[in-house]
């Protein structure tokens, strides 16, 4: 009977390293482009990453979390993905100091579930809570408080990164600083982030005191931003892209309110049953949606207390809203433009209008000047605009190329986490640190995005 206990160990070893048999298709959030992966590894334990990477061929693998990157930065066409979403254990939480140490596959939603009742909140949160901690770091995400808190990467105490050439390396703002700075915003290419320690921020309540104020032009937006950024922790605006070069919009601002509401009813989380038919997404449909939305939100601007969920994550209420864009998927476009170049922003809005494209949800935000440690971090001082465009083939791609030109000329940048099509030139102009960043690439890792923007 001596072999009895050694056989299951053998099983674990095999299961750890072998890819899944007939795995499901892995998509990015925009469902464009589609990728055929050669194999999918599903990691259940952090100790499995070292053998997976050690056995990997050069430039063959990419860590994958919850697939909320829009374009192809989370895809690895023709090669392998390592699904890390099950590395979701929280390893320690100091309720006195707000330090949370967890595996990198844990979602921000899970963190909030534990942190909020204890009086802590994410120091920075993107517009969805269904991203992993590792994804938030690899994209150095930002939120409505960028003008105060900067990016996600500024609130990390340490990381464990597993590299194919060095094993598990601990890095932080004080130790192995180079690797830390490359990994924050490093698109998952500097090694697999196994675990991270994050400094949460204290809150006095689980609601946001929010206001919604209509505005009628970019200047109107800027005036509101100028005034609000001083007294409000969170600011962001929605704009109606069908309303011309001087767009109307709604400016949202808010602060944490005091008081906890443990009995607040959880949202049910509606699901889109299948990909929507394309005719729902023609310009008239979008125009109607935008006008109605503006009218609805302009009715009153008085301050009101709203839940954290509805203030930060309105779209999370529809679990797979990306399917509303139909089977061809959609493109998200986010750029940042120096504030002195408002004319470029107007040119972009004019460009979208001219093509009759328009966007369901266009978001405008003024980034602050807090610098991220991330070498490849996207946010920088200026105005950032994010658009969703249904994929309509070459027309859509051509329009976005034109927008790139305007952005690059104005000295701006395009956001990789949302990109599916920018050229190597646009990427180089957006990220001058890319050549230095190359030194930190893990030799076993690559992505569809990376091969696309670095092809010569």
């Amino acid at each position, binding site marked *: *009977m001596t*072999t*009895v*206990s050694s*056989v*299951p160990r053998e*099983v*674990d070893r*095999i*299961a750890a390293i*072998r890819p*899944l*048999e*007939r795995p499901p298709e892995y998509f990015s959030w925009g469902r464009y482009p589609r990728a055929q992966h050669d194999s999918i590894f*599903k990691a*259940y*334990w*952090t*100790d499995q990453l070292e053998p997976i990477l050690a056995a990997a061929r050069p430039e063959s693998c990419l860590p994958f979390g919850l697939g909320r990157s829009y374009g192809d930065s989370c895809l690895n066409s023709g090669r392998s993905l390592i699904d890390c979403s099950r590395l979701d*254990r*929280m*390893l*320690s*939480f100091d309720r006195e100091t707000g330090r*949370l140490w*967890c*595996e990198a596959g844990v979602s921000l939603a899970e963190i909030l579930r*534990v942190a909020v009742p204890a009086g802590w909140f994410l120091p920075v949160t993107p517009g969805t809570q269904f991203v992993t901690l590792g994804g938030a770091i690899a994209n150095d995400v930002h939120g409505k408080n960028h003008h105060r808190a900067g990016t996600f990467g500024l609130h990390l105490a340490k990381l464990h990164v597993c590299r194919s050439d060095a094993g598990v390396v601990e890095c932080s703002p004080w130790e192995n600083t180079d690797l830390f700075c490359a990994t924050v915003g490093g698109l998952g290419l500097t090694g697999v982030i196994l675990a991270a320690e994050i400094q949460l921020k204290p809150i006095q309540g689980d609601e946001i005191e929010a206001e919604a104020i209509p505005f009628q032009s970019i200047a109107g937006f800027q005036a509101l931003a100028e005034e609000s950024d001083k007294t409000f922790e969170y600011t962001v605006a929605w704009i109606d892209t069908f309303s011309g070069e001087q767009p109307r919009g709604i400016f949202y601002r808010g602060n944490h309110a005091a008081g906890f509401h443990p009995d607040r009813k959880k949202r049910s989380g509606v699901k889109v049953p299948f990909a929507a038919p394309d005719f729902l997404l023609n310009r008239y449909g979008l125009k109607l949606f935008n006008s109605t939305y503006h009218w609805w939100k302009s009715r009153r601007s008085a301050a009101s207390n709203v839940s954290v969920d509805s203030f930060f994550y309105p779209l999370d209420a529809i679990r797979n809203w990306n399917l509303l864009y139909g089977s061809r998927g959609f493109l998200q476009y986010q750029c940042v433009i120096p504030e002195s170049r408002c004319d470029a922003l107007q040119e972009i809005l004019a460009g979208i209008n001219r093509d009759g494209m328009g966007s369901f949800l266009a978001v405008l935000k003024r980034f602050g000047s807090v610098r991220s440690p991330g070498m490849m971090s996207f946010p920088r001082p200026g105005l950032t605009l994010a658009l969703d465009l249904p994929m309509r083939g070459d027309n859509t791609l051509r329009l976005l190329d034109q927008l790139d030109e305007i952005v690059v000329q104005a000295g701006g940048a395009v956001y990789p986490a949302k990109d599916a099509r920018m050229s190597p030139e646009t990427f180089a102009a957006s990220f001058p640190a890319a050549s230095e960043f190359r030194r930190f690439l893990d030799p076993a890792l690559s992505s569809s995005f990376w091969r696309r923007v670095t092809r010569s």
Partner: protein
Amino acid sequence: MEKIVILGATSEIAQQTQRLLAGQQKEMLLVARSADRLQSVAADLRVRGAKQVIEYACDLADVSQHADLVSFVLQHFPEFDTVLLAYGTLLPQEKCRHSVELSLSEWQTNFTSAAALLTLFADVLEQRGAGCIAVITSVAGDRGRSSNYVYGAAKAGLNAFLQGLRGRLHRSKVRVLTIKPGPVKTPMTSDMPQGGLFADPVDVAADICGALENGRKEMIYTPARWRYIMGAINLVPEKIFKRLSI
């Protein structure tokens, strides 16, 4: 159910069940083979609200380690009221059916060691006159199929063992709960093409917690549809069944 001993605490179904129990501020003593993995699982449950989590690493398939385990439990977690047995292995059937050695190891892990361990815990609870023994078996034990009868035989044995144990322990007010999951998306099945009938471990865990909480349940299928599927499968005459490649 406030204090639960979980045997095979790093199994995927056990982990998801433990998370639900942690959310209800339960106390747990977790047993698993790998001390490192167990440590991360236990840490996670503490953060998620478990009132107390005790770890104990040993190889449950090795019967010679059982006595030490039981005395550890009696010493450090004496007031436990529930035992959940959740470990098991599923080696590829193609390999097992020609190998006595692999088959024996499957039976050792899935039946012999499990029945041996339950024998010890049954005595403790019987003496106490209260408690619950819950065991994750499988729909594979309901009828032997050519595609996995080696594993199925062990689970069938375990089902029969539990039926008898239920009869014995019911006199001492100890409940025996047989949990029969259909195929679940876990590392154990990652070598199989996971089709539409594969359940999410989170859903299976919710069913298990529901059955643990409901003091009257004695046998559940999870997801519940497997009660009907297996009911239908059991009706097929052997003459026809032997020709089916399922």
